[in-house]
């Protein structure tokens, strides 16, 4: 473990105190999505389509409704007519017309597992029994799953009103290619033709799931007067409110969403699947209703991350300088338009390098699988796998050390980002230098093993957050925020507030409030929370300090400008009043002290990681074992070092799973063949070595404590780091994920 040097001598920033929600979580007391109980609560269950593509001719719910104990049945017909309407709140705007159909099919099903009806009953057993009594009349339609199949001339077209966006001319025929997005600069073709070395390859990936262990779950209660409450775990209860209210066409103020503890999201819990359904059931039944997803349904009907087909050519001069990139990436979009991974895929493809000539074209391709949903650095790992594999090939062809090749081409502060805006205090070069200096990189590669390296960036985000800080009468401090804590952020908020105020960490208590108790905060995603919500907490704390100084000034009868705040104490000459002393007197100095801050910062900076991976390949079975793994990352500045390292380790292991094992496998009838943790094989403890971490700190000057987002970057480089390691161990370039034993075995036999 590498504790950051406390360069600025912070008292608390960069330390590792126990998190405020820790005891509840190690003793089993914390209440997660599936744990909440409302009095009189009914149990719900959802009927899902067995077909990947079908028209619903009719649904007969009469027998189900007649079953004793059944209190409500809903189908797509109970949903208000959904027109095109965009709502903000999540990482990008969502079109409610499509979001509604992710909750319940309306007239047509577009993927196996899409909800078609739901029941609320007095017990789970009754609800399940009622599902069996619902008769759905399907007209089965031809389906398509794979990207290339969906683009074929004779492919079944999913939507007759979806035309490819982003073409120069509006197309006349609907298409499964819902969107094209491209970046063109210079003349990539000519530059590559004149390059000293080039590499051309096609890389493919399958859809993967976020794999959070907590199932989606909620309890909804929609009263006769139109007011509603929802208890659920999500990455952003304001987004849940916006989408639920939008779909059901009710006022935002009439829906109060209570955030429960969230058991992992990774981007996948920034949308609604259950909440509007539970609401409709509750309104019909007149009682609160709980819905919980089964694991198979989570795999079948919630957002995977896109599979991809990527064609890439990179060209470099003899000294390694990149001269041109030609890339076409096609990403799975799923059943409905709106997935935005293509934007970050195109924008981030070679965004961390200086490439004068680039032609990067991306396509979002619809097919009969669930609509893609954000997964940690959405859209970046796929393209990074292709780019960083190509870089590895160029390094080998040019005889240049792979880290040196990257150092030669990496962008530096002041140079333009992919969007053309000059980059601020980024630490790409520092991270690469730290990787190069790491003992892992200089250690000899063990016989029979291969070592791979890859780097990657993620833009991070800012966005709106609200926080309030209140003083207790005894001088203790209450922070209230609206950002769900998915990995220790309460601790980071407490550290920042305590550091700013000059009090002990334990004096600060943090609450994540419901949507009616604190102002709007965007989802916890995009690596924005410690940055943006942190800024709101710091700003509100500064507001409290101003009031504390004012109270002290009044007590002393001096001008507030002459009072300073030092280490939790108001100071004027040799006069001092501690925070506790001022707090104790608020009753006579003007009343309680509190401040709120609303921020919407956009001065965030990208993060950057370099991963080094050693693998051993069993030539008899094709099994790949990760022997050693090191994550080096520019983290800006770590607020709570344990949870920064935790993000680096967790993201890396998710990426390793993506590289080696994880993939959606569809059978010929369009059904997901591995919709469970047994067959969808995520990494377990015995698969992994320790994950060594190096936090490189190049602070963001726009944040009081230098924060950059840290959560997303670590899943970007592992796919190529593992792929490059296996390629070097076997002498065979890995073009296709997952690098599963059967695939490696086949490649090894073919090469013999």
């Amino acid at each position, binding site marked *: 473990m590498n504790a950051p040097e406390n360069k600025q001598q912070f008292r608390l920033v960069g330390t590792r105190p126990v998190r405020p929600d820790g005891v509840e979580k190690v003793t089993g007391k914390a209440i997660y999505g599936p744990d909440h109980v409302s009095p009189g609560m009914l149990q719900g269950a959802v009927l899902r389509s067995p077909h990947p593509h079908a028209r619903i001719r009719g649904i007969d719910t009469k027998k189900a409704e007649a079953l004793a104990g059944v209190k409500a049945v809903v189908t797509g017909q109970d949903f208000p007519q959904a027109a095109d309407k965009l709502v903000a709140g999540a990482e990008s705007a969502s079109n409610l017309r499509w979001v509604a159909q992710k909750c319940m099919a309306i007239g047509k099903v577009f993927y196996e597992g899409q909800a078609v009806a739901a029941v609320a009953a007095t017990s789970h*057993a009754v609800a399940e029994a009622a599902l069996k009594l619902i008769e759905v009349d399907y007209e089965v339609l031809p389906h398509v799953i794979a990207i290339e199949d969906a683009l074929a001339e004779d492919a079944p077209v999913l939507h007759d009103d979806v035309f490819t966006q982003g073409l120069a001319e509006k197309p006349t025929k609907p298409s499964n290619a819902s969107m094209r997005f491209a970046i063109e600069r210079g003349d990539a073709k000519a530059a590559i033709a004149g390059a000293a070395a080039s590499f051309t390859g096609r890389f493919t990936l399958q859809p993967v799931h976020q794999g959070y262990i907590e199932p989606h779950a909620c309890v909804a209660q929609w009263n006769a007067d139109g007011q509603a409450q929802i208890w659920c775990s999500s990455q952003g209860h304001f987004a849940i409110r916006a989408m639920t209210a939008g779909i059901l066409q009710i006022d935002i103020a009439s829906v109060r969403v209570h955030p429960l503890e969230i058991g992992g999201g990774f981007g996948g819990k920034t949308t609604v699947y259950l909440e509007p359904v539970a609401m409709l059931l509750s309104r019909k039944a007149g009682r609160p209703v709980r819905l919980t997803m089964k694991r198979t349904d989570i795999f079948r009907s919630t957002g995977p991350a896109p599979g991809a087909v990527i064609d890439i050519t990179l060209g470099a001069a003899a000294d390694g300088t990149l001269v041109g990139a030609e890339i076409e990436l096609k990403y799975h979009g799923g059943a409905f338009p709106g997935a935005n991974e293509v934007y970050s895929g195109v924008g981030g493809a070679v965004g961390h390098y200086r490439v004068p000539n680039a032609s990067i074209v991306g396509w979002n391709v619809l097919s009969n699988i669930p609509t893609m949903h954000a997964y940690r650095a959405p859209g970046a790992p796929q393209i990074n796998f292709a780019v960083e594999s190509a870089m590895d090939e160029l390094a080998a062809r040019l005889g240049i050390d792979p880290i040196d090749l990257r150092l030669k081409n990496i962008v530096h502060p002041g140079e333009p980002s992919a969007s053309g805006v000059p980059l601020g205090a980024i630490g790409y070069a520092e991270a690469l230098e730290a990787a190069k200096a790491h003992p892992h990189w200089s250690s000899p590669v063990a016989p029979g093993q291969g070592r791979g390296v890859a780097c990657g960036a993620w833009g991070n985000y800012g966005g709106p957050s609200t926080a309030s800080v209140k003083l207790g009468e005894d001088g203790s401090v209450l922070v209230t925020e609206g950002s769900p804590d998915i990995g220790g952020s309460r601790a980071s908020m407490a550290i920042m507030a305590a550091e700013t105020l000059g009090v002990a960490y334990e004096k600060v208590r943090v609450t994540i409030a419901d949507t009616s108790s604190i102002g709007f905060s965007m989802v916890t995603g995009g690596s924005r929370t410690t940055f943006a919500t942190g800024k709101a907490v710091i700003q509100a704390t500064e507001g409290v300090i101003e009031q504390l100084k004012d109270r002290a000034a009044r007590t002393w009868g001096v001008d507030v400008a002459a009072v300073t705040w030092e280490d939790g104490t108001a100071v004027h000459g040799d006069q001092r009043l501690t925070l506790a002393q001022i707090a104790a007197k608020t009753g006579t100095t003007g009343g309680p002290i509190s401040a709120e801050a609303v921020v919407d910062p956009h001065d965030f900076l990208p993060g950057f990681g370099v991963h080094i991976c050693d693998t051993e390949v069993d030539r008899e079975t094709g099994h790949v074992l990760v022997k050693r793994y090191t994550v080096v990352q520019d983290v800006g500045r770590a607020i709570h070092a344990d949870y920064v390292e935790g993000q680096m380790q967790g*993201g890396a292991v998710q990426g390793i799973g993506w590289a080696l094992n994880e993939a959606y496998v569809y059978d010929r009838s369009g059904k997901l063949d591995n919709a469970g943790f*047994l067959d969808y094989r995520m990494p377990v403890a015995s698969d992994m070595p320790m994950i060594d971490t190096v936090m490189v700190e190049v602070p963001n000057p726009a944040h009081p404590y230098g924060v950059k987002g840290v959560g997303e970057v670590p899943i970007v480089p592992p796919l190529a780091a593992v792929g490059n390691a296996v390629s070097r161990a076997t002498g065979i370039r890995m073009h296709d994920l997952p690098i599963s034993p059967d695939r490696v075995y086949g490649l090894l036999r073919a090469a013999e």
Partner: protein
Amino acid sequence: MSKLLVSTTVNGDPQQFLCDPDTSLLDALREEMDLTGSKEGCGSGDCGACTVVLDGKMVCSCLVLAPEAEGRQVSTIEGVAEGNQLHPIQRQFLEHGALQCGFCTPGFIVASKALLDHNPDPSETEVRYWLAGNLCRCTGYDKIVRAVMDAAAELRQDRRTAA
């Protein structure tokens, strides 16, 4: 379907509950006894979030039928701490930051305790294989393994001091 009356012992306390014959022990703990510390991540024995100890043996409570608990001893996450005194494993999890979302944590702690109860000095490999039935999607396992190793060392130290 008529309900069955089950009498069992949970964390040392006598418990009686009514359930359908096909109710899982996990559902009985969560729904009938309000012990929601045991989690359901899969319901199929693949994630370990529901881990409990039944008559000294670590099991996935989602795979045990509730009536099978009749006359037996069940230990859950709620019984790991003694009152407000955290078990060393719980404390080491906190000190290492070995949880992010914490949803897997009860299962890991119950499983780790079961390991250390019968093997006080496990190697890293033994810890990793023992915990291979518990999925954590957040941490990458590094800090969990370190927490368990350190808890084992602490418990050995405690035993030496007590001896």
